[in-house]
């Protein structure tokens, strides 16, 4: 653990230069799918991803709690038996529906785990694009009010 941290710090120093040079180029940064992330509904996001409403599929699974103790951090992972090219996480009742999307090259598993914010109790959708076609699964995650509320 400590050893790892020390290594990390050394690398930090060495790679500062590289970071400022930038491994993500400005041109790549431009590719961020603004339209999809600005979508305010499921349909708008589906549209921006170039699909009609995806078919529900049992080949996609979502691992997430039924109840989140705090909406600021909700762990969600999506996986599939299909060879995913792309994965997306959508939260129906968030101000912006699309939370994140992931591009999965060959050699990388059809799996991602991350943590998202939820404004309120909502259906959460896990989308997987495989063989050029989007499929999805969904579940409701309840967001509870925490602490003293003050």
């Amino acid at each position, binding site marked *: 653990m400590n050893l790892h941290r020390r290594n990390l710090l050394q690398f930090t120093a060495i790679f500062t230069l590289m970071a400022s040079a930038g491994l993500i180029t400005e041109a790549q940064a431009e590719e961020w799918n603004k339209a999809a992330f600005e979508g305010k509904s499921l349909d708008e996001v589906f549209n921006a991803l170039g699909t009609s409403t995806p078919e529900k599929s049992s080949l996609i699974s979502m691992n997430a709690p039924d109840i989140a103790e705090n909406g600021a951090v909700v762990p969600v992972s999506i996986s599939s038996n299909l060879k995913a090219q792309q994965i997306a996480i959508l939260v129906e009742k968030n101000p912006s529906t699309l939370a994140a999307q992931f591009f999965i090259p060959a050699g990388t598993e059809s799996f991602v785990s991350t943590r998202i914010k939820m404004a309120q109790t909502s259906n959460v959708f896990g989308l997987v694009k495989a063989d050029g076609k989007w499929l999805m699964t969904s579940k409701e995650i309840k967001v509870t009010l925490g602490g*003293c509320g*003050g």
Partner: protein
Amino acid sequence: MKNKVTHSLAPLLFFYSLIFSQCAYAQGKPDTQFQKMIANSFRTEGIANIDRIAQDETQRFCSNPQASHDAQYQKRVEEIQQLNMANIPAPKDGRYIGDWQKGEVIAQSGRGSTWTDNQQTVNGGGCYNCHQIDQKEIAYGNLGPSLWNYGKLRGYSQEIVIYTWKKIFNPKAFNACSAMPRFGHFKLLTQEQLQDLMALLLDPRSPVNQ
């Protein structure tokens, strides 16, 4: 400006503490060291003024963990309860039951009176922090008893209505060292808010009584 007020208050507060400390603890020993620590460890921030650290008689008595358990304090417990009972007004408009829907909102909100709030912040009752109320709300605390079916179980008699009003206004009138805040006594909630909370518990149409 506010800070200046704070600074001028601190010595005064300390002086008060010295007077009160005579009867503050079971041992009956003056505890100037503790009072000095308390006086020196806090400062005003926003609306949370330093004078909040001073205790009233009820708070002083109930800071002794034995106060509400030990038989030797029984007489004092009764005195404290009478003291709190003595000053509970009936609603000025004679109306005990308000709007249960507004009551639910008040029960949900735990906001108000902290240094991150301001004078304009509307205080909530924070009721769900400690009580189950409407069964549909799953995020409820258990420091207090469940209030589900409150009216349905107890009935809606005038006696129950008045008892409940007094209990919310000043729970220390019934249980000297109750954990529940004195919502009316310390003006944490307005008369209208109290009426709305009453409705949540005692309106037969409230979801609590279904």
